[in-house]
């Protein structure tokens, strides 16, 4: 009897393993089917649409690369790319810099520091739409508090039309973006600081390096990868913003603050040129793939 038990166990084990293998394959099928229907098919449809004239109703007409040729001669589209690029160039570095400042402020253990972290993080958890409505209200020339404060402290005596002029409107959108997302940069950069072995800083302190010297010669160079990663994240995020412009300015005055996502939105769903909108989406996707390649490279180097 005692001899049979181990072999029985082995057989049961083996059948457990083979059954588990079959079941494992089956368990992945629902998610695969779902992703196929709602991701891979739409992705393929997008490629196909971009090669056609595709009105919402009526006949589709094959154009080949016609849409793409039109895109790069379309002043509105190029302008939208430029608006998004300007926004990225302002918002992404600011998010990283301010995030770095916050991370350095709250990196170490102190009484009350966890409350401060949560406060800086809080705007990240609310939606972009409510956040944009808050700033739309704060910046309103009649009922907004920003002008009231500026008048009370004597900075300006007239009420400023923040969202009517292109320059201040972009500044407003950048402020909203930084306020809303800088907590995420702070979190990742804090991780980068904490990953530096303490011995290195101690050695620097031993050699007589002060706070600033340690920061510039030790901390920042060792965080290079994390900073690059955060920069890529905020670049992609800033490139994809919709609510800050759509809600604050509706893309105006004129189309001076219409970014790429809003261009796709209005081309596809106001003008109902779905094929042309899809071609714009493919261009957006190409830009994002370039960014993501940088991101993957930064992450891979971080590991080695």
């Amino acid at each position: 009897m005692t001899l049979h038990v181990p072999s029985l166990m082995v057989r049961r084990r083996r059948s457990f393993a083979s059954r588990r293998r079959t079941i494992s394959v089956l368990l992945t099928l629902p998610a695969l089917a779902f992703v196929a229907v709602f991701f891979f098919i739409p992705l393929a449809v997008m490629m196909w649409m971009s090669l056609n004239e595709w009105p919402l109703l009526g006949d589709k007409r094959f154009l080949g690369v016609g849409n793409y040729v039109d895109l790069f001669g379309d002043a509105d589209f190029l302008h939208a790319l430029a608006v998004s690029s300007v926004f990225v160039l302002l918002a992404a570095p600011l998010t990283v810099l301010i995030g770095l400042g916050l991370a350095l402020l709250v990196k170490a253990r102190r009484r009350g520091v966890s409350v401060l972290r949560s406060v800086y993080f809080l705007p990240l958890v609310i939606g972009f739409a409510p956040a944009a409505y808050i700033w739309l209200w704060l910046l309103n020339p009649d009922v907004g508090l920003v002008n009231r404060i500026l008048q009370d402290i004597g900075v300006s005596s007239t009420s400023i039309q923040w969202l009517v002029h292109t320059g201040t409107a972009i500044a407003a959108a950048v402020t909203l973006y930084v306020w809303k997302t800088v907590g995420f940069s702070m979190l990742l950069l804090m991780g980068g600081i904490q990953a530096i072995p303490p011995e290195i800083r101690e050695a620097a302190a031993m050699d007589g390096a002060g706070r600033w010297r340690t920061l510039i010669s030790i901390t920042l160079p060792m965080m290079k990868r994390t900073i690059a990663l955060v920069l890529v994240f905020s670049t992609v995020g800033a490139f994809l913003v919709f609510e800050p412009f759509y809600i604050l300015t509706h893309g105006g005055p004129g189309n001076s603050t219409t970014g790429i996502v809003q261009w796709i939105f209005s081309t596809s769903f106001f003008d109902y040129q779905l094929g042309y909108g899809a071609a714009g989406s493919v261009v957006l996707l190409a830009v994002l793939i370039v960014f993501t390649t940088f991101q993957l490279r930064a992450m891979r180097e971080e590991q080695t």
Partner: protein
Amino acid sequence: MTISLTRTLPDDRLAPAQPIASTPRRARRRRLVGLLWWSTCLILACLFLFPLVMVLLTSVKTPAEAVSSPPTYLPRTVSFANFVNLWHADQGLTVYLGNSIFVSVATVVMTLVLSTLAGYGLSRVRFRGSTLVFLLLLAPMMVPIQALLTPLYVTLLNLDLRDSLFGLACIYTMSQIPFGTFVMRNAFASIPAELEEAAWVDGCGVLDAARRVSLRLAGPGLATVALFAFFTAWNEFLAALVLLSTDDNFTVPVLLQNLITGQLGTIDWGMLQVGVMITSIPCIVIFLLLQRYYVEGLLAGSVKS
């Protein structure tokens, strides 16, 4: 990496070795630095909180005071008229809240089911093509919804899910499957398979063993996945704006847009503040309660290996 907003480092290894305050000058200097640190942090905290606090204060002003120009800082009289107005706005607030809750719950449930199954399937054994399956399930992460909006609209049209809350929930679920599968795969992989084998020896079936043993231990992973699915579905604006077309299907963020472009082009600011609050407060409360899962999820989603 262990980073969190609440937990702090076990030792204060970031501060350079503190010099012993031997001289009064050094002690004074240290006190000054501490004071400077506190005032900087507090001023920043006020700047970050100011917009949120002012929304809260404005929501309890009377409707007339909320649109007064110049604006007041503090409400002169406390009134809940804005809440009442929003309650009756358009189809009635309950309709929009119901829509948002339906989309959020549907997204959370579908995401949990699909990514738990797939995550388990990918965690225990390697089968032929398992790496490929994993990569296919991660693929939607590379393409944000914003870039896929036009074909998603056409796809839902063809599936007869036009202007459908369920269709919207499907889109959100698709966008959450990469993160969900990734988190659940790691959660199951960290549970020793021997535990399931022991349950099998005790007479459980394979799935039974997984359900009774591993699923119970995967709670933190499930919480993280559910949290992010909820936040996405509750807050998302652009896809909801595009894919929903009739008024009584709108989710709360789209209702806000409706309030703005409402009658005669005038904005009822007091009502808008209440709308902003109702959208934001669930997120803030859930974040404060489940901070640990939220932060862990953010890090898992960004610093992948």
